């Protein structure tokens, strides 16, 4: 299955992925609608002055968030870890267990996570499409399953 993979040596720390993610999931017609707004992306650039990298859901083979969600709101569908946000009560247990720091609350307090843009109109991760330096890629890599 295709996932988003990180080439941290190419990451400029420009945060464009965060904007493209927020826009892809916003329903706005133009990305300029995000100007001046606090954004709630599902990918986050981390790092320091030496190295930066963009982190989003790894879609783990054995996802601990799915096993830990107290509301039963997170499940795996065709390999993609998905969240049913209307079931989420915002307890943050998924944040407590995700070893990658890949989940964060959305604007309304319910959790959100990367679903590879398969559940919005993009069809493929907008963060990757918009990355100017191939610091994140969307591809197949060695699959154990």
């Amino acid at each position, binding site marked *: 299955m295709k996932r988003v993979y990180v080439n941290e040596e190419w990451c400029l720390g420009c945060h464009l992925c965060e904007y493209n993610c927020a826009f892809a999931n916003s329903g706005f017609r133009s990305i300029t609608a995000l100007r001046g707004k606090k954004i709630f992306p599902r990918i986050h650039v*981390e790092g*320091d002055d030496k190295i930066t*990298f963009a982190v989003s859901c790894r879609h783990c083979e054995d996802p601990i968030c799915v096993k830990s969600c*107290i509301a039963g709101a997170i499940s795996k569908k065709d390999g993609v870890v998905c969240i049913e946000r209307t079931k989420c009560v915002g307890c943050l247990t998924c944040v407590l267990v995700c070893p990658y720091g890949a989940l964060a609350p959305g604007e309304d307090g319910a959790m959100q996570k990367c679903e590879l843009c398969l559940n919005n109109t993009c069809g493929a991760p907008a963060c990757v499409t918009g990355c100017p330096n191939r610091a994140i890629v969307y591809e197949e890599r060695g699959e154990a399953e």
Partner: protein
Amino acid sequence: MRNYVIAGNGAAAVGCIEGIRSIDRTGKITVISAEKHHVYSRPLISYYLEGKTDTERMRYRDAGFYERNGCEVLYGEKASGADPSAKTVTTDSGRIISYDAFCVATGSSPFVPPFEGLETVENRFSFMTLDDALEIEKKLCDTARVLIVGAGLIGLKCAEGIYGRVASITVCDLADRVLSSILDAECAGTVQNHLEKKGIRFMLGDSAVRFDGNTAYMKSGATVGFDILILAVGVRAKTALVKNAGGEVNRGIVVDERMKTSLDGIYAAGDCAEGNDISLGAKRVLAIMPNAYMQGYTAGVNMAGGDGVFDKAIPMNSIGFFGLHIMTAGTYEGEYSEVREGDSVKRFFVKEGYLKGFIIIGDTVRAGIYTSLIRNRVPLNTIDFESSKKTASSSVFSSEIRRQKFGGVV
């Protein structure tokens, strides 16, 4: 075709069903469910009262779950006995069910101390089940004074759930602080202040000794008038099935890393079980939902002949009250360090070069990275832990480790 029987119908039972089905698609699964409800998320009962969810969304698995997984659910029946030599389970309706593998996932029941005069209290409740919440809801009104006995996770979540739907809420506890099972005195004080600002009244180091109708007589000599009494003193693991069958029982049903009890063919999972806590290096009941699911799943895999091991159990809680989030994990032993930033506090406990536990109030961003250091027993001298205390980040790891985490299938 194998016969699987599960006593209980909560998160551990669901884990068990999904664990069995990961190996065996056809065996028969019988679920004995004392509660007459499709499996629901038990900790969500406070959110239900708060109006953040409803009985439909509270389903832990969708409506077609049992059918899809080939389960027969016996609603309103309780497993009353197990015979490990005959490999049968008896229910309170007299049904005798044969099994090849049996999982005890009976959970826990509220512990109610023998208070004098408790029977004179008309509106008294525990806060464990959906039925409890539905019954309490019928009594909620804006003139009702509520007394909650117990300032633990259950008592305080109940307080939050009914907040704004009653006239007043008083919480008492024999312990000198709130959330005494997961917080130290100072952090407990922070949480208590936050709740007091909302108007919740606390009587700590004090508890009811006697009830007479709508009055509680406290240990301190004080009296508290109330209209609704909620007893949230604590819980006890339901161990009788295994104990009566001659199995090893301590505070919970003793299980190994494969969730096997001391009785052949009988497994246990969830709040009724006592498994290994790797942060403590000893067995204890870890009555938390993620643990229940993972133990259940492991039991299910092994019941179906697979090879399941769950050797990463630690206590961990993520809980919020009126917007203030608290996360705790592991065991609070060893050397302790603290990072403060604004109103946010992080306390880390390090022993022999390993992170053993933490308490976070406020800034919970990416806290799972800390949890993974405990669960995976990452030697702290292999990472840059110091720099990540302020903000959790995968930058604690080397580029090589990050390449594995973010450049490959995990």
